[in-house]
């Protein structure tokens, strides 16, 4: 695939690597928005990025920034700053790099799955949901003044909500979707019930129907080892992945009646409308429903 011409997509920031997993001096080849790119961490730790096309000299990418231990790249002219996540760097929680995971579908499918509550019981049986409690209680969805999409007052009963807890407990969730291909969960910390654990997903769209998921956890957990936290995350995400790679169409349909939502999909409906209004073309499917 060629580099996209979608200016909305090109002018946004995307994570393309975790800095701590980028060995100094080594190059890392990947793809962003259909464009092959090569990253390199210099001796001073600062990464550089070039666009690569066969038979042409490499072009230096001007906008490369390190923030939150991730390498962010914008292939166009940034239309805004990188999203502010004040909890990263705040005292208390442990920061866990969860590693890059490839998923052969659109980034939008990954984001939508990430904030979907109704699949917990069926895909994450025994951890994030159970077959005995499958109901999604009503929750609120709104677009804030700064343009971010939020779902609040979400609740779900979870048999094992995190690596830190053994028994079932009702967990409160808030979802923040600050940019189309980025989502952050705030959920009750089982080991610190007045605080939130945080999980963030930054999706790198390689092509319209292929992406890499970069993510982090910010956890109140004094007990679990890093590897135990990581195994818990990877178990959950690999379960999502095994479902995501079979979802069709791979690009996210935006038009009404292409897929039939239920009451528990309020955030999904809002996400699709919000994407539609954003003007983003890359990774979305704007075909209208065929008449029955």
């Amino acid at each position, binding site marked *: 695939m060629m580099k996209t011409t979608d200016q909305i997509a090109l002018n946004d920031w995307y994570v393309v690597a*975790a800095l701590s*997993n980028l060995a100094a001096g080594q190059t890392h*080849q*990947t*793809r962003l928005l259909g464009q*092959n790119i090569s990253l390199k961490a210099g001796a001073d730790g600062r990464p550089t990025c070039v666009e690569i096309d066969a038979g042409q000299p490499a072009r230096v990418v001007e906008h490369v920034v390190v923030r939150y231990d991730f390498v962010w790249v914008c292939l166009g002219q940034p239309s805004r700053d990188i999203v502010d996540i004040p909890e990263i760097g705040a005292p208390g929680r442990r920061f866990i*790099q*969860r*590693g*890059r*995971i*490839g998923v*052969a579908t659109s980034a939008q499918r990954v984001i939508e799955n990430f904030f979907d509550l109704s699949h917990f019981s069926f895909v994450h*049986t025994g951890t994030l949901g159970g077959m005995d409690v499958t109901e999604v209680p009503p929750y609120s969805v709104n677009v804030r003044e700064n343009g971010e999409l939020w779902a609040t007052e979400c609740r779900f009963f979870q048999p094992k909500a995190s690596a830190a807890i053994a028994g079932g407990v009702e967990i409160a969730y808030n979802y923040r979707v600050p940019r189309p291909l980025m989502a952050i969960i705030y959920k009750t910390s089982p080991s610190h019930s007045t605080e939130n654990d945080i999980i963030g997903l930054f999706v790198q769209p*390689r092509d319209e129907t292929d992406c*890499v*998921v970069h993510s982090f956890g910010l956890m109140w957990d004094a007990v679990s*080892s*890093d*590897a*135990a936290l*990581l*195994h818990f995350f*990877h*178990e*959950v*995400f*690999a*379960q999502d*992945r*095994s479902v995501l*790679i*079979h979802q069709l169409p791979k690009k996210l349909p935006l038009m009404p009646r292409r897929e039939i939502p239920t009451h528990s999909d309020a955030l999904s409906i809002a996400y699709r409308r919000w994407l539609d209004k954003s003007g983003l073309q890359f990774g979305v499917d704007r075909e209208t429903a065929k008449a029955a």
Partner: protein
Amino acid sequence: MIRLYDYILSSDCYKVRLLLGMLQVEFETVKVNFHPRAEHRQPDFLALNPLGSLPVLTDGDLVLRGALPIVSYLAQTHDPARRWYPADAAAAARVLMWLDFAERELAPISEARFLNLIGRDDDLSPLVAAGEAALEILEDHLAEGEIAGRQWVAADHATIADLVLFPASAMAPEGGIGLETKPAIWRWLDRVKRLPNFIVMPGVLPLLG
């Protein structure tokens, strides 16, 4: 106590977990940050296994690396009836033949699956072609077996050959290899999932109902 050095998304570790589950053997796990931290390449782990690979299993002073030696050891020490790894020479050799097939011929599938999983941009088409060719052979073997009334790969009951062939076959779609044209493999995967004490790993869908 048996100790398994484990990574949740490793299909080789799953082979061992699967047999430990089937045999109802108690064990403890040491969780390794295989991806992204590459702890298996760190000095501590290399002292245990200089190949820097998973799984590793320890039982007292015994240190075993690699799924095949480990399942062979567990089947011979925790299954007095010797069903999982038959004692009869010809039967044992048939099992070994399919263990070897899983280790060599299905390796490209596991590799393609893992490169996909960690979001690498390598050209996977040679691995996919080799994996497809290997699954054709397994498909034919299982289909011929069904015609002759055989349900399992190497004996008239499930053996460690079935368990060791299972992960790469079941997760071939994660490596970009579809199973749509492999009906005998589908039916055999289903039979494995119905075995008593079967457990899944993330990526392997459980039977519902």
